[in-house]
């Protein structure tokens, strides 16, 4: 479970987060939807403790992110905003490295790596160096390194950007599978179709604040609009920075 309460963060002249509060529950896919520059990445970074909020706090499984970042990071898997691969390592070494950083060792580590490679259907590329991988293959490695330690919570920052159809399907299937296992999934996006299709719970944020939240249907009902798209535009009051 991931929770933020009154998160605020200002950069020089920009108020990136302005009292952001929401909860992402276990067994649900929660989408953080907002236009570009709404503060999505800043919010996720403060959850894994790379950014210190000016006010408020973020919690993962009731552990405070600012006070105990290492414990929080043990409980989450991260698919970051920009992911770069270690191009001189093979996909398997790559995943094993991050598994080891999460404290897995010996047989347990090997089993975890084998399992995630099988889960993501990446046996064919497992022993190739990641330099020259296609976007889809790179994404599989990034997903594998995020979930190899079987985290209870998974955070994805704009996971579907630049993905082809096949890769999007891989991602979607993975997220559904993790939801069935009762894990908490939080992802940010500015692509509405994706959020509408995938999420059980949507948090719409604009200018660092929550504008509305609920299931896609609930949001449609609340605004009296037939489509989620119209509901969304009504809620944020602008069409700027949104991809339909």
């Amino acid at each position, binding site marked *: 479970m991931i929770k933020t309460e009154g998160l605020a963060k200002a950069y020089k002249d920009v108020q990136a987060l302005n009292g952001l509060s929401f909860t992402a529950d276990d067994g649900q896919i929660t989408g953080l939807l907002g236009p570009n520059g709404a503060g999505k990445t800043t919010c996720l970074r403060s959850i894994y403790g790379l950014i210190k909020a000016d006010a408020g706090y973020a919690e993962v499984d009731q552990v405070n992110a600012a006070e105990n970042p290492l414990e929080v*990071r043990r409980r989450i898997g991260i698919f*970051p905003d*920009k992911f770069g691969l270690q191009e*001189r*390592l093979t996909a398997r070494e790559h995943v094993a*490295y991050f598994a080891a*950083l*999460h*404290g897995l060792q010996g047989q347990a580590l090997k089993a975890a790596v084998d399992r995630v490679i099988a889960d993501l259907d990446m046996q064919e590329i497992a022993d190739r160096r990641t330099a020259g991988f296609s976007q889809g293959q790179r994404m599989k490695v990034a997903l594998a*390194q995020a979930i190899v330690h079987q985290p209870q919570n998974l955070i994805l920052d704009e996971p579907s950007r630049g993905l082809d159809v096949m890769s999007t399907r891989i991602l979607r299937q993975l997220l559904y599978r993790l939801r069935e296992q009762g894990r908490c999934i939080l992802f940010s996006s500015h692509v509405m179709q994706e959020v509408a299709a995938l999420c059980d719970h949507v948090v719409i944020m604009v200018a660092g604040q929550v504008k509305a939240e609920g299931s896609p249907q609930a949001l449609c009902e609340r605004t009296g609009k037939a489509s989620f798209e119209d509901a969304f535009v009504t809620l944020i009051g602008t069409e700027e920075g949104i991809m339909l």
Partner: protein
Amino acid sequence: MSSVFLTIWRKEMIDAVRDRRSLMAAMSYALFGPLLMAVAFLVLIKDVVSERDVRVHIDGAEYAPALVEFLESRRILAGNDEHPAQDIWLTIPEDYQSRLERARPIPIIVRSDYSERNLQSQRSRLESALREYNQTIAMHRLTLRGISGEVIQPLRVERQDTATKGSRAALVLGMVMVFVLMSVFFSGMNVAIDTSAGERERNALEFLLAQPVATHILVAAKMTAAATFAILGGVLALLLIPAVFLFVPLEKLGIDFAFSPMDQLVIALTLIPLALFASILQLFVSFRAKSFKEAQTYISLVMFAPMAAVFALEFSRFEHPVLQLLPVTSQHHVLFSTIAGQPIAFIPVLIGGLVTLLLTGLLVWVVTRMLRSEKVVFGL
């Protein structure tokens, strides 16, 4: 905790070994220094040991065949087409023989541009040969008149060189040791850049920092990986020096070069703190850079300082007790004493090493703080 350290170190090592650029950079500095010195010495020895022929213009050689023959025995020859004469003219007068027979002074002219420094040594060789010939004739004349030649030699100057073979070696080989220090600084440089600025350039830094790893362990492991390369470069240079100098006849310069495995071991050990210090310094600089190229620019500026210090010490022979305690200069001191054949004073060596490690620790702390700062990490 330590297993995470080892994991990161091992990964960085694999990464670096697979990176041709890092590997080549590490090895080339270690190879380059000793080889360069060997070539320099070979040239130097040739220059010093084999006296080259001096070619001059001789006017009136036919009037004084004995003098010309004597000059030839001192390898001072008249120029010809194959070996053109230098701009030094020796003029022997027509009445040389008759003046010699009458024991009258014979005007011999040595004409040359005396402000021309290049010809300095040739001129003085010619003049000293003439002086020697002068002396020989004078001796003969005195002996003929029943007077011992010693009466015109009130002073006899004898040179006694107090330089030991070791100290002379130190003078020359100090330069070689500078190359050992340099290879420590340069061998790990590429790894240090790749593991910091390179990581950022690949967009891998944020993800790495979001792992459940204490930042200081991350920094220490990356530093140790770069330092491993640095120390390997230094050790390679150390091993190469005796190997290379096997082929250089240093004894012709009167240099006794003994570099025992024990010396090498002691030097290698003193280089370990230096390697760590150099690596964390490089990390400190390149974690601030946005790209590999930018880091290279900054680092070459920063690396200039310790190198300048070593070269300055090497040439000025400046000594001060504090220098034995500071990083770089303390290690330089140890290296220098070893080749000068002086016994190693272990207390200053230990203190120098400890001070270096202390500064290294301080820099680890600074870099750790840097990586916790969102400003540095995200460039906000």
